[in-house]
């Protein structure tokens, strides 16, 4: 039953790569053919993938791995090709499938300098393979390979098609991420060697499901904390968490529009996804001890990102800092280790992907018209390009968490979840985090409204007042933006579409001692770290 549709995830993963290989053989001059192939493949995958996954996915068993495929890969180290999805990965895969064709449509008529659509599209397709692969991989080594595959195309996209400072930004992006993943692979290897089942036999496996079922039993406290630390570096740099966030504003500012959109919409989620898929299920006890520190860095990120936004003069850089702040909410939700918080985090990932992706799209379009993103030189967008101005307004409202739009459901529950974190996580500290995070939302409203006011309202500045280049949104922009705008509203009005998908999977991913009501637990079964009162302990 589960195994007869096991080919679909491999198809979704490798079809873009196949298309990229075909395109390599086609001469560069044939631009239309390249664009058609890229759009047909990624668009086809979107339509097919959405329909197939949504109809075939068994929502009643969203906590189970579905479409699972398991084959030999590198048997010497017992690493296998295992792919599968559950309710936690499904929304992120759909998000990836959606964003890629929209990016291709958006760039249809104006590829950034130095043009060269062939290479640009090939890179986007390789990126799609890496991103989907990371979300479906159920083996640590396979996950690591896809996690790294993503780096190369993004590096080239920034280094070749980026802004003036692209050389610096691209290398910084690459070096930061590689540093994290080098420590991450050490952590994975330590797990491989240290994991022992209950009878003391070494497990010697990279299978994420098997390791999650093992859950760090019999591991010494120090080893667990160090291994979690290695994974924390790998995922935390990718998110990015304060203080590893400094690559993000540079990368976002220098990347071409489409690069920024993919970076914000999907790449950052690889880090948060790693936390909820790998780090927390495999090492729940270490997660409890790390939680206050993760929560602390998350709220510092929220406030620091927001203050950073207030100090920016460049629109794209401002949106980049707002990403740091928003990913802070996601990480705060994760660090509570509750189903409520992690559901909010997954929602926040999708919402942030759509909303911030949208903001970067608009920023890119403004840059095309004004050739600058300096906030003080802009103004009066609502007069010169009213529809685009309203879209910008809509996206900023969604970003600041207006109820009824998607952003609200990522942010608000994440803050609420900090009120009652999981068993063993210090309640007082998280309540303090909750208050600080709430202040962060006020700051968010401040900088976003300030941005909107300075760019969209008022009179156009003199230098651009009669510029003939400035026109309203084009056909391609509408097509690329409409699905995202619609989804922001739909998810804002019916958040349960997503929550019902993720909830069972999130609940399964958490250790029962974390989430059960203390009264219902047999305290003797829970390790001391979960801090469940027993008479006599």
């Amino acid at each position, binding site marked *: 039953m589960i195994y007869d549709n096991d080919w679909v995830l491999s198809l979704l993963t490798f079809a873009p790569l196949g298309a990229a290989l075909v395109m390599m053989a086609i001469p560069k001059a044939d631009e239309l053919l390249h664009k058609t192939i890229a759009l047909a493949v990624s668009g086809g995958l979107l339509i097919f993938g959405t329909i197939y996954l949504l109809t075939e996915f068994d929502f009643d068993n969203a906590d189970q791995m579905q479409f699972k495929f398991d084959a*030999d*890969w*590198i*048997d*010497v*180290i017992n690493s296998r090709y295992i792919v599968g999805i559950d309710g936690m990965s499904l929304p992120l895969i759909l998000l990836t499938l959606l964003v890629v064709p929209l990016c291709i449509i958006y760039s249809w008529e104006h590829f950034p300098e130095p043009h060269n659509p062939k290479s640009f599209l090939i890179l986007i397709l390789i990126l799609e393979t890496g991103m989907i692969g990371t979300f479906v991989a159920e083996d640590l*080594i396979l996950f*690591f*390979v*896809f996690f*790294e*595959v993503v*780096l*190369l195309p993004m*590096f*080239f996209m920034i*280094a*070749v098609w980026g802004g003036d400072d*692209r*050389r610096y930004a*691209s*290398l910084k992006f*690459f*070096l930061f991420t*590689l*540093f994290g993943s*080098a*420590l991450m*692979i*050490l952590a994975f*290897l*330590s797990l491989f*060697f*240290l994991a022992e089942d209950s009878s003391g036999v070494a497990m010697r496996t990279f299978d994420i499901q098997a390791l999650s079922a093992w859950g760090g039993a019999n591991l010494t406290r120090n080893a667990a904390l160090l291994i979690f630390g290695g994974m924390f570096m790998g995922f935390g740099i990718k998110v990015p968490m304060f203080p590893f966030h400094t690559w993000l504003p540079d990368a976002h500012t220098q990347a071409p529009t489409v690069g920024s959109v993919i970076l914000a919409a999907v790449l950052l989620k690889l880090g948060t996804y790693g936390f909820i898929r790998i780090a927390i299920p495999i090492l729940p006890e270490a997660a409890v001890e790390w939680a206050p520190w993760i929560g602390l860095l998350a709220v510092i990120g929220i406030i620091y990102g927001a203050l950073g936004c207030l100090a920016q003069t460049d629109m794209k850089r401002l949106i980049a800092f707002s990403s740091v702040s928003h990913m802070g909410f996601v990480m705060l939700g994760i660090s509570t280790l509750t189903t409520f918080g992690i559901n909010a985090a997954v929602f926040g990932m999708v919402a942030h992907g759509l909303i911030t992706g949208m903001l970067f799209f608009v920023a890119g379009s403004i840059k095309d018209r004004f050739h600058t993103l300096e906030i003080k030189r802009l103004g009066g967008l609502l007069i010169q390009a009213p529809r685009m101005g309203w879209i910008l307004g809509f996206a900023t409202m969604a970003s600041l968490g207006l109820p009824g739009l998607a952003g609200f459901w990522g942010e608000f529950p994440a803050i609420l979840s900090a009120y009652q974190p999981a068993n063993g996580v210090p309640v007082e500290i998280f309540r303090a985090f909750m208050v600080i995070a709430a202040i962060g939302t006020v700051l968010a409203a401040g900088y976003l409204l300030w941005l909107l006011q300075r760019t969209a309202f008022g009179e156009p500045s003199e230098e651009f007042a009669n510029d003939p280049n400035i026109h309203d949104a084009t056909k391609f922009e509408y097509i690329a933006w409409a699905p995202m705008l619609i989804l922001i509203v739909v998810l804002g009005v019916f958040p349960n579409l997503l929550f019902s998908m993720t909830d069972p999977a999130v609940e399964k991913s958490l250790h029962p001692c974390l989430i059960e009501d203390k009264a219902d637990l047999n305290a003797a079964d829970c390790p001391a770290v979960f801090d469940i009162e027993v008479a006599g302990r």
Partner: protein
Amino acid sequence: MSLALPIAQVVAFDRPAIDWHALAPEIVLLTSGALLTLIDVVFLDRARKYTSALAGIGLLATMVPILTLAIDGNDRGLFNDAYVVDEFALIMKAVFVLSGYVVVLLSTNYIAEGDYWESEYYGLLLTSLLGMVMMASSRDLISIFVAFELLSIPSYMLATWNKRSLKSNEAGLKYYLMGVFASAIMLYGMSLLFGVSGETILTKVNASLSTDPLSGAALASSTPVLTLGVVFIIIGFAFKVSAVPFHNWAPDTYSGAPIPVTAFLAVASKIAGFVALVQLVFVGFYDRADVFHPLMWILAVASMTIGNLIALRQDDIVRLMAYSGVAQAGVILAPLAVAGASHDIGDEALASIVTYLAIYAAMNLGVFAVILAVARKTRSTGVESFNGLFHYAPGLTVAMTIFMFALAGIPPFGGWFAKFRIFFAVVNEGGFWALLLGVIIAINSVVALYYYANIARRMWADEAPDGDLTPIRIPPSLGSALVLTVATTLVFGILPQVISHVTDVSLFAGG
């Protein structure tokens, strides 16, 4: 022991039984080399245009007995186990011969078009390869030394092949002096080891190191002598593999020698050094981990850290590759710093080194193939000659990008698996020093990425110097070398079991 044999026994020489099948690869290689020299003497200039093709055919012919021996699958020991043909020997022989074949492909046009002597070139190349092929089987102090000299002496001459260039002369002379110096130290170390153990066969050396050969007592009293012997031998090979602090010759020699010779030195010759080192460690003094572990740890950490840091400042691609080679030598030495913990970990360490060496050969030969192709147009090996390569040679750019990121260890290109196996072996040991070593390798791979990614960035993002966009013409032999190396690098990265099956070898008796 054998020192005190009666005279009559020494004079009456019985030819030991020779397993001709086991020696077939060496014999084919020797015959091809000799034939090549002979053809040149007889036909003079008329044969010149065929020499490289003949050398290539000779090497491919050498692969035939290697394959039949591999299919046969029996371990064969000759001359009282001084010369052993086992899985390890065969895979390393195959790596040497195939690397040699790629070097011949690289040399074909370079040597013919430059002002070089052609036929002797290939003769010397094959002779040096013969030394390497012998090295893979040598399990005896004397045969190791003979193989070492046989592979070194022709390469001293090859390094000076551009005889009208001062730089090439400097390269060769420096290489020669350092090489002889290293040989002397190594020989001294071997004599000390022989003095302590009274044996030259490595298995017997190891057996006698744990107990005193005369009294049967524990050998604690001779530990200082033994340590000195081991240290000297390792230093001798540390020169060959250009490990810090014995790496100074490498950048000068690499940048002075003709580029195909540099490729040969950086790949085949260096691998030969590792093969010897691995055999000594795993067969010769494996039970004395207390002696070689700290030494290897220091050599590994110093090589990768210093190699990487100096590589950051290089503006010549060949010198950069020299320092990258130093850093990689450190990575390859790392498993030797944990290998002695147990036989399981030892096997894991050996498999990781063999895997790394095979992938290393593919990646580095590929890089030199690209350097050669680019130098055909720019006549320079400065890193700026790679600027804007993408605009006029996209194929070469993609190939070089693959090699650079393979060297940096980014999946899905071959290098990631090589580096991963090293991590795997090191973390497997699990002690504090092993884990620290793992973290140091991890940090170093980030440093290394900086200069590799910089080359990639130059090719893709920068403008070509003077806006010169004439395409590069790649001769067929160079093209096939590129295709071979790119394909190998990709296959090893995406389907690592292809390589990991053949590199799962052991040097322990009965292992």
